[in-house]
């Protein structure tokens, strides 16, 4: 391959890993039937937590690890509340979105005002190549887990018809807790890479809105782990090289900031107007309240 092309692909590595892993985690969680509207809040919080933990621990890996743990805890909380109690998934998601936005500032701002120096991942070609390979491998692993294992079948069953799944001996709560935990761990990793590898800087509000882009990436790929690779690659390319467009065509920076959101909307439209949405239909019980009368928690 031409070295210039290779450099272009590698350069988009951090952006790709961010959006792919976040969209992958989101898709996995939604496969289990839980409508995930908390994604942007927890993503923003994950960004702040990763930044703060990396600075305090003098190590970007500490940042990633703490972000993964915090995000996974939110995943467990969302899975538990939406499965065990007859509550609207949308209400839980949006309230956690607010909590995430607010807590992100509480976590990040004090650190930034005391220690303005960032701790980040290296900006090296080998690290970027590693990010690309590892995130695709994680995606393949998730795909195999969903299609080839008993757990994957249980996750899909909980998303399609939790009552039938339960009757067949699937513990819907357990399955959704696993999907929420793993899904949000991936979202946490994605958010950590966003700040520690992609933007390499933090200020109040960094990350806000990018969870929604990952949401649209996942939606436009029908939550399919392999199809999401293509969608995420397109978005990563667009995001990473929008500033090139800006310089080359002399477009206002505000327009280039808008491009990913327009693309996100366009991606959702393309998904719905093409036969894609029939091939990659959403889980039938997505966002539906799972409630059995007189049941035990």
């Amino acid at each position, binding site marked *: 391959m031409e070295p210039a092309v290779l450099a272009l692909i590698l350069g988009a590595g951090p952006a790709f890993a961010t959006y792919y892993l976040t969209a992958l985690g989101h898709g996995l969680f939604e496969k289990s039937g839980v409508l995930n*509207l908390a994604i942007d809040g927890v993503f923003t919080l994950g960004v702040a937590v990763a930044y703060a933990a990396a600075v305090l621990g003098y190590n970007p890996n500490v940042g990633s690890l703490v972000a993964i743990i915090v995000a996974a805890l939110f995943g467990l909380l969302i899975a538990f*509340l939406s499965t065990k109690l007859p509550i609207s998934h949308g209400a839980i998601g949006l309230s956690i979105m607010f909590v995430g936005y*607010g807590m992100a*500032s509480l976590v990040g701002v*004090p650190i930034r005002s005391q220690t303005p120096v960032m701790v980040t991942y290296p900006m090296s070609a080998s690290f970027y190549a590693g990010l690309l390979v590892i995130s695709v491998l994680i995606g393949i692993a998730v795909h195999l887990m969903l299609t080839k294992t008993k757990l994957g079948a249980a996750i899909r069953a909980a998303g399609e018809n939790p009552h039938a799944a339960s009757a067949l001996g699937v513990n819907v709560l357990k399955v959704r807790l696993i999907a929420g935990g793993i899904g949000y761990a991936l979202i946490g990793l994605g958010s950590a890479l966003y700040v520690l590898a992609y933007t390499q800087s933090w200020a109040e509000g960094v990350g806000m809105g990018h969870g929604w882009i990952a949401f*649209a990436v996942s939606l436009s790929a029908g939550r399919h782990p392999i199809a999401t690779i293509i969608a995420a690659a397109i978005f990563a390319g667009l995001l990473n090289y929008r500033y090139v467009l800006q310089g080359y065509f002399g477009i206002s920076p*505000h327009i280039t900031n808008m491009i990913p*959101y327009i693309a996100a909307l366009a991606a959702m439209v393309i998904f719905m107007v093409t036969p894609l949405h029939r091939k990659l239909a959403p889980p039938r019980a997505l966002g539906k309240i799972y409630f059995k009368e007189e049941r035990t928690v």
Partner: protein
Amino acid sequence: MRLVVTRRIKPLRFGGIIIPLLSIIIGIVIASIALLVLARVPPTLVYTIIAQSFVSPQLLRPFVLLTILGVALIISFSAAVWNIGAEGQIIWGMIAAGYIGLFVAAHSMYIKPSELPTYENMPGVMILDRSPIHPVVSVLNVSPAVGGALMILAALVFGAIWAFIAGTLRAVLEIDEVASTLIMNYIAYYSFNYLVTGPMRGLSVQARNFGRTDALHEALRFQRLPIAGTTVTWQEVATMVVVFVLAWVLLKYTTYGLRLRILGSNPNALRAAGVSVRKYIIAALTISGAIAGVVGALIFAANLFALNKIDNVVSPPTQSMGYTAILVSWLAMLDLKGIPISAYIVAGLMQTGNSLQAALGSVSTAGAMISGAAITHVLVGFVLLTYTVLRVFTEYSIKVVRGGR
């Protein structure tokens, strides 16, 4: 030990009052713990400021705006159409009102420095910039009443168009309106930034340097009510009353409103009756967006006067009220009567965020730079989360039973 969830035969008595109150108290306590742990804000300070905020006359303005927005959202929420895009609709209302106020109802122009004394006392002229090289004046083109009406009308139309797009995407292509309206909020933010720093950028020195519009002509600014300590204008109060009454009539006394409510509870019944569900989905979002758009005009002409670019999406010129209004209509349990009460509570929380931000510098070096918007988000988020969970108790009872599975 296990928990048993059962549906109540009758809803919990006084649940409509007890549950929201309890949620607010528990939510505030959780938020104050988060503030203590992460930003070292003493909880006593939080509680003192909350107590002060709820009786402060400054509360009046956010109360009025949140009531209008709460009504806007309830119209779409009661049709089970989740308009989370009030932010974007307000922003487009601001842009439209800004265009009318700055370029149609009045316009700014350069004059020669020697002409400055001539313009000084001319009726209908306001001097924006006394720069010795390029002085700028704003010239009024229409009467202030017409100008104000035009600003509100333009904002209404643009807010409605922005929501109509999401409504059409939902009705025709079945694109989830939560995702589309949220994503469109960001498109609106960046459109705003592009317009106020580009085509709508002002002529005065400050406007050119900071990339903002010129200031609105004084005659077009809305007039404040003569109440000490508040910045609310009579136009805002009048809009609140009109919007509230119209929404009341729409939802309670018209077939249109009844069908919107049926759309929320049983869309199949509506389909069976031969009513176009698509039309009502679009209508719910468009009406909601039109009202939110008007709030954009109110914020611009009553308070901002000039449109500055958004540097940080945490604190847009809407003060994120498009989002906080979601709590207003949810706390009211989607009942129009409850809107003013929940708007009062949420306005109190918003005011707390702002006052606490101002007080933080003296008590917490760690938290001194945290924005008021972030504190409001923490308070609103935890109250909303607690309420979402506790609301289960109004219709279900949860019992703890000892013993195995």
